């Protein structure tokens, strides 16, 4: 929600006050977005909330999310957010700071990873739709891991358990201490 507003305003491209009609259009669009979000809560998704930090020099953290088996072996990469805009892929220089993910997956991957790589996110809630991510994963007990590492900051990992296939609604949450506010996993039984 909070992300939607600046997006529409910046689309306008100018700093002037939106006209009345535009305003109503905006409200309409926002409510549609709202409905969209409400529906998507019913779907499979991973919600990652990054804390707002009162620090002198803030850099958005690098974040990785992945599914691993009980022994820690990576099964599916879900997301990796890093600085994708730098020249000559220089943003990849700090991927190793996602220490756990780097060992479990990143160091063997060829960047960028299709459907996984993305730009860093600002503080607040981000939602990753888990469409068909786990459809080929054998039945068993797993963990969804989320790791965040911030330049001039710290590093934190969180994990929540997940049994596949999903037979009843899952909503599990883990609270972080410093680099991650929380992660929440919503899963519905496959239709």
């Amino acid at each position, binding site marked *: 929600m909070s992300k939607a507003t600046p997006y529409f305003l910046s689309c306008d491209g100018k700093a002037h006050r939106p006209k009345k009609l535009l305003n109503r259009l905006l409200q309409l669009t926002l409510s549609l977005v709202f409905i969209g979000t409400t529906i998507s809560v019913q779907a499979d998704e991973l919600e990652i909330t990054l804390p707002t930090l009162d620090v002198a020099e803030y850099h958005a953290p690098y974040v990785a999310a992945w599914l691993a088996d009980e022994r820690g072996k990576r099964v599916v990469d879900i997301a990796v957010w890093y600085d994708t805009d730098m020249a000559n*892929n220089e943003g990849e220089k700090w*991927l190793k700071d996602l*220490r756990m993910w*780097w*060992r479990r997956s990143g*160091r063997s991957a060829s960047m960028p990873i299709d459907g996984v790589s993305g730009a860093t996110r600002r503080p607040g809630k981000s939602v990753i739709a888990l469409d068909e991510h786990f459809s080929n994963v054998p039945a068993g007990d797993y963990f969804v891991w989320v790791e965040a590492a911030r330049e001039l900051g710290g590093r934190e990992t969180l994990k929540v358990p997940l049994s596949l296939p999903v037979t009843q609604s899952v909503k599990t949450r883990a609270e972080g201490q410093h680099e991650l506010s929380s992660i929440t996993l919503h899963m519905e039984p496959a239709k």
Partner: protein
Amino acid sequence: MKKTLLIGVTALALALASPFSQAHRVWLKPSTTSVSGDSEWITFDVAVANGIFHPDHFAYPAERLSVVSPSGEPVDIQNQQKLRYRSVFDVELTESGTYKVFNASQSLVAFWKDEDGERHFWPGRGKTGTVEEFYEAVPQDANELNVMQTANRLETYVTLGAPTADNNTLTGQGLELKALTHPNDAYTGEPIDFQFFMSGDEAQGTKVIVVKDGEKYRDTTSDVEVIADEQGKISLQFDEPGMYWLEAEYEDDKAKAPAKKRRASYVLVFEVLPL
């Protein structure tokens, strides 16, 4: 000044030639061991010092080092500079995989006393000596003549992307380490397994000492000392992440004449990462 230099050179010669000179320890330390991206630079310190990793004695000549890329190509060291107590240089990693930086030397060495009781060492000053040179240079009837085959190896490994093992191969010369656990895949709380070979044979009884960085801030030593089993294997495990210095020493009587003993040392710096 001249005297200091001479002592320095002698110390280096001894440190390089005799693994059993306990006072000075040689180390080749990368700034980091596992990096990401399309390419990356790693900077190295190399020194003969009392401290781990505190340069306080003598700069190891970096030109003695070789670098091998993951695919086995020689790589140049760059920005080399010999400072007072250490040499520094950079290596640019452009290939994905593990690079090896190393020096390996072998020599015949001899110690003896002359008629005046003065000690002599041959071939001296970090040089290597052959059997032919030995018969020319060393008086065969000298007092307390002690002749040894020595081999010294100094190594470290660094990785861009995922670790590879292609350049961790045995040459069959001197004391060597087969990394059962890749040195760039060492983590706290997990076993780190190494196997030692002497001239290609499993080096049973190899004495190993491991010292963690930050030595100067510790009141009591936390060194790990282990002896390799009948297959030359050791298994280490650490709770603390950091840069570790490992020195292995091997000695036996299976030397070729004119040597009576063979002595070898192997030094590795590796990083243990936290998970």
